[in-house]
Structure formats: C-alpha cells, structure tokens
C-alpha cells in the first residue's frame, strides 16, 4: 500500500509507470472527477488509468493543494474514501444564493450525540446506546437511519440476536470525513477533573442537614 515511487522533482516532464506523463494523469483525474457524482476512490482511478493507486493518490493530493494555493472557488477533497470536487467553504454565501433549496437539514443535539456514540462504539446495540444516553434512542435512531447516516451493520451473536448499529458512508459525507480513522481520539473528550468533582458534589449521598424539610411527604410505604 505504501508509495514506492520516488517523488520526482518537477524539473523536467516526470513520467510514471507505463511511461505516461504525470501531467496527462492529472488531466485525466480532473476530467473524471468533473464527471463524477460520488467520491471516486483512488483504487478506481488506478484501475481506469492503469497506474498504482499510490501514484494517483499522490497526484490527487498535489492537485488538491494546488487548487487551494491558487485560491480557486472550488476545492478537491477526500471524503468517504474518495476524491471529489466541491465548492469552497469560503464561497458559502454566494453558492447558497444560487443553489435551489440551499437549506441543509441540520442535526439535533440528540441526533449528534447518538451519532457520536454509534460512531465510536460501533457495532453497538440499541440497549447499549440507551444505557449511555439515559433515554430510549429508538426515535433518534429511526431518524438517523432514514437519513442514511446509520444502519444495521451486524447482529449480536448473543441470545437476542439484537441488531447492531454502525455508521454509513453518508455519515462520513455529512461530516466531511474521509474515514472513521479521521475521528478525533475519544480520550481527548473525557471530562476534566473539575467536571468530575462537580458531578461528585452534585451526587453526594449524605443528605444536606440544613434542608431536611424537603421531605414533607410521608414515608414511602405505610
């Protein structure tokens, strides 16, 4: 999988495998991506252009950087495992005015949180999600599934054979990620000492002596 090629200095016309000038490969990449409606995997480019995938990925990378340097109104990005053209985020205002139905569906806090749990813990059962969120996740899962961001990716081998949830390619596209490996490490999100302390305080078991009057209800059972 590694790139075995030696990155050529751009002095003369560099050629890659099978003697195709790199400039021609770059042109072909531009043409193919312009015609594509989904991210194009380097493996597919490799197959179509009969070059090692590593070469094509390197060329794509360089092309993407050059667009950025030239301050194009579009960019070439790696999303959901492939390369694609998209409008530059700087141009959001102008494109929004142009695109019909420019409003994008926004995700609710509950949806984002559930998505986060599924993304990091997949494959995960409904019950496990419920346990983490403290609420029944069925409605949110249904919404996320109907939008295509999560789906059943496996079944629990245990007795219940519960469906296990995972994220989809559309999830990666929605967040603009290339792969799940691009998710930030979960360790970075563990609450700090101050939060832990506050929670411990809030959940003190010993009742506060000064406010014994809150229990103006009779004992639980007669």
């Amino acid at each position, binding site marked *: 999988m590694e790139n075995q090629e030696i990155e050529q200095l751009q002095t003369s016309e560099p050629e890659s495998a099978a003697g195709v000038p790199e400039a021609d490969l770059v042109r072909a990449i531009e043409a193919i991506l312009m015609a*594509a*409606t989904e991210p194009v995997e380097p493996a597919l480019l490799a197959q179509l252009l009969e070059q090692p995938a590593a070469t094509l990925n390197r060329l794509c990378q360089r092309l993407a950087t050059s667009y950025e340097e030239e301050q194009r109104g579009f960019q070439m990005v790696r999303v959901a495992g492939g390369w694609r053209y998209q409008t530059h985020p700087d141009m959001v205002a102008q494109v929004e005015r142009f695109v019909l139905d420019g409003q*994008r569906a926004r995700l609710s806090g*509950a949806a984002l949180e559930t998505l986060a749990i599924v993304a990091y813990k997949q494959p995960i059962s409904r019950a496990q999600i419920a346990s983490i*969120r403290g609420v029944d996740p069925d409605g949110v899962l249904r919404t996320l599934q109907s939008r295509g961001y999560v789906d059943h990716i496996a079944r629990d081998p245990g007795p219940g054979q519960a469906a296990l949830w995972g994220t989809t390619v559309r999830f990666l596209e929605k967040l*603009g990620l290339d792969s799940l490996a691009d998710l930030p490490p979960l360790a970075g*999100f563990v609450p700090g000492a101050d*939060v832990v302390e506050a929670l411990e305080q809030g*959940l003190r078991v010993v009742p506060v002596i000064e406010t014994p009057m*809150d229990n103006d209800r009779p004992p639980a059972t007669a």
Partner: protein
Amino acid sequence: MSYEVTTPVFEGPFDLLLHLILSEQVDIHEVSLARIVDAFLVELGRMENVDLDVATEFLLIASTLVELKARRLLPGREDMDLDEELALWEERDLLLARLLECKTFKDVGQVFARYSTLADSSWPRAAGPEEPFASMLPDLMDGMTPAKLLRAAERGLTPKVVPKVELYYVAAVRVSVADALEELFDELPRVGRITFRRLTDGLVDRLEVVVRFLALLEMYKQGYVELEQAERFGDIEVIWLGAEVGASGVSIDDYEG
C-alpha cells in the same frame, strides 16, 4: 409564542442532571420539582414541534429525578443498614460513571456539529457527465414499468409514522396540571393501583399525557401516591396511598404557559 431563552433543550435525564449539576451547581436535594416543571413548559413552548420522543424522554427525565430524590431521602431513615448504604454508594458511583460517559459523547456531539456545519458549507459536484457521456451511463430505469412505478408510489405515499405536532396545535390544547390533579384525585382512589400507561390510555394528545404525569409527580411529592418502575423504560406503576386530605388541600400553581 415568545419565550425567553433561559434553558437549553434537555435531551434526556442525564442531560438535565448534567445541566443542573454543572451549569447551576444545584444540589439534587434542593432541586424543586416545580422549577423543573416550569423549565419544561418553557422548553415545550420553544420547540417548533413536539414529537413523541420528546414527550417520552421527558417522562423519563422526571421519573429518574423522582428516583434520585427518593434515593437521597433514604440515608435519613433510621432503618438504613450498612448493606443498603453500600449499595447506595455503588448506585451513586454507577450513576457518576454514566454521567461522565454521557458528558463525553455530548462533547463529541458538539465537535460533530462543527464538522457538519463546515461540510454543509460546500456543495459537491453533482452535474454528472455531459453528453454524449450521459447517455452512455447505465440507465437506472432499465426494466422499469408503469406498474412498478405505481407500486412504488403506493409505498412512498403510505405515511411513515413520523409523529409531529405543529406548535399552533399544541397551543390549542388547554390542559393544566390543576385540572389533571382534580381528575386523578377522582380516579385513583377508585382504582387503587394502576399503570401509568393505562392511566393515560384514553388521552390522544401527548401534552395531556405529560401534564398528567406532572400532576402525578406532584401527588407523589405530597405523599398521595407511590410510583414504582421495575426496570428502566418499564411501565410506571401508580399506587394510591390513601388520603386524609382531599384535593382541595393540595396547593398547586397552574403551570400553564
């Protein structure tokens, strides 16, 4: 409908607890039920539409809080033995661990929100290949017939159950906790013991269900009923404890609006 934005939207009991503990540093013991009820109704007003999930989640928030309050009251009792006390500590640690985990993913969710906002500010190339390439594309409608299309239309037009109530609809429902209390004081002594599900069987509107639950919480707080929930998300059992005091003795504000 214009409400001051005073509280965030609570996504669940953990969410509410985290909010209460972290944002306001309020001791659970001092959390007043009335305050939560108020906060909830404000939330309800702020929501553009109310769906079943929200209502259900709220019921769970409330029952979790009730459980917590009940727990908190336990150590004060004389008959508390060491085993029970240890069990309580265990429960507390478990709850703490779950709150921490919940908080972790809550923070991740915010990062996801940033990612998706950025991703939403770009539009992917979608034009596809121009002619003559376009007509070379394998046609997605190959093999399609009018009859197949009709069946797809029937499938597609059969409404999915997506509960959604517009705000004006909610506003039109005139229910108050006081009214619900009156009904419950009439009904509960006759049945004695009933599940919450059955108690709300005849109610069509979700807001009515919620209001009825709020009324039950008030009755619980004042010692008229016991609430039991055998398992998380399980049925809530309502047990009438008898009344030396009548409905007139209950003081409750009308929580509407």
